[in-house]
């Protein structure tokens, strides 16, 4: 069963990615319409929508993890069912280490580039690059919350609204 915290986190995380995608679509569409009608387009739309897409990628990856919907090869675990929990424990540790390294590198990179500003909006480029440490920190939280059912039984969240089978491209 999900804890109250977990439920609230998932709900918030989900609404944030919905809002990001919806505003990307509205913004870019408005710009295309504007270009057709008036031959002008808003300069900052391209920049802002690109940065929103970057945030979407890093903020969404955590929930994708929860649903077991990142593409991977499970053949080995199916061949050796007895060793499977041990293999998944190893994957858990490796992912945790990788995510932690990415948080650290992401912070360093954001700090390093904070002085630069984006070409059109003139905001610090570090605001965009913060997506990486924030996203990977969020992935760590999701990874910890899913750890026990995943390692023991390879159980993920299931939700008719986000079907794990439908996500692989």
């Amino acid at each position: 069963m999900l804890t109250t915290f977990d439920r609230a986190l998932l709900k918030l995380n989900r609404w944030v990615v919905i809002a990001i995608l919806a505003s990307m679509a509205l913004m870019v569409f408005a710009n295309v319409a504007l270009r057709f009608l008036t031959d002008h387009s808003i300069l900052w739309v391209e920049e802002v929508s690109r940065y929103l897409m970057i945030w979407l990628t890093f903020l969404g990856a955590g929930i994708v993890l929860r649903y077991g919907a990142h593409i991977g090869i499970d053949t080995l675990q199916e061949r050796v069912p007895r060793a499977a929990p041990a293999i998944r424990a190893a994957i858990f540790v490796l992912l945790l280490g990788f995510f932690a390294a990415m948080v650290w590198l992401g912070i360093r990179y954001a700090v390093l580039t904070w002085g630069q500003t984006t070409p059109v909006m003139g905001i610090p480029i570090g605001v965009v690059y913060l997506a990486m440490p924030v996203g990977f920190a969020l992935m760590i939280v999701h990874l910890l919350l899913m750890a026990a059912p995943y390692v023991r039984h390879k159980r993920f969240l299931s939700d008719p609204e986000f079907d794990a089978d439908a996500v692989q491209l």
Partner: protein
Amino acid sequence: MIATLFVGCIILLAIGVPVAFALGGATLAAIVVGGLPAIALPKYLFSGIDVFALMAVPFFILTAELMTGGALSEVLLRFASQFVGRFRGGLGHTNILTITFFSGISGSALADAAGPGAIMIRMMRKDGYLPEYAAALTAAVSILGPIIPPSITMIIYALAYPDINLVGLMIAGVVPGIVIAIAMAIINHVISTRRNYRGLDERLALRDYLRNTWRALPALVLPVLILGGIASGAFTPTEASVVAVFYALAAGRWIYRSLEWRMLPSILSRSALMTASVLIIVAMSAAFAWVLTVSRIPQQLTEMIVAANLSPLAFLFAVNVLLLVFGIFIEPLPGVVVLVPILAPIAHALGINDLQFGIIVIVNLTMGMITPPVGGLLFVTSVVARVPLTRMVSELWPFLWAQIAVLALLSLVPAISTLLPHLFGYR
């Protein structure tokens, strides 16, 4: 450093680490071992996805999601059925034609299989087709998703090899897609004859034809709008993708009336998460490809192959074999991001047309989604048809051989890929 990169990646993938993080983890390990600056990892991660052209990925995903939620598949199906339904194996042919149409709206193979594919499998089961045959046919035809424009794989391809023109590549996919559809129809005909799968015996009057076509028209406008808009230069692919989103929304809401406002949050969240899972792979693959470039392996490989004076055909043959083997294990997107920057310049240097080579690579890697034992498309269709994957495999072979034959044809006859884009002025 290169050994760490490849061995690390293979081990991580084999134990079941998700593709995105296997690529990223191996890249990080190789950077540490090779003494490269670690800060380059976030740099290339960002530059891999900080591209406006990639915006078409979420928008084409969203379009397909908006179109599947509702009456669209059914309308397309009835439209297709009136032309091919009465022939032997009619429902199989209807399946092929419906998915071919839908590929002109969706940019991914799994959207094809999970949308109209799932409906067709159920109908074929009910009509007495072997469920494993229905599943195998659907999986085989669904590879058209990324071959017939729009195509997410092509967007990533143009990113991995910037010398190619994305619009030209999309136009180049049309004829090969139709050739594959015809090949699948031939196999369906042969097998239906052998097993006596009959056609549908519905007598249609002219009035029915007109009504079915009229009902399908708003849906059929979308592929025309996307391809026509891009080919004529009215839209860039990114603009076309966002126009398609709002067209699909309007058609679903006000023409077909199958789309309710309250369905939007779940459609958006599904699309957003699919986008994240695709783009995180693209980002990690970009960093992976950077380490590969630093190692100078691609450059050395190019020099070696060019010096070996290989004929273009021998090279194409070697690439096809390599990709077919690779495709069994890797997904199309990481395959494109990692292999295309190495292979496409070699092909160019050997005088192979960029568009032809792009189509061969994309068809080949997409076929990897249906080559046994594992493949995303096999997984989806076996779940829908409720047959174990292993039983689908024997039904799949005729389709796979036919696709390999098409691949040979695409390699031998450049015009199949290049003629149409040539007419529009793309080379």
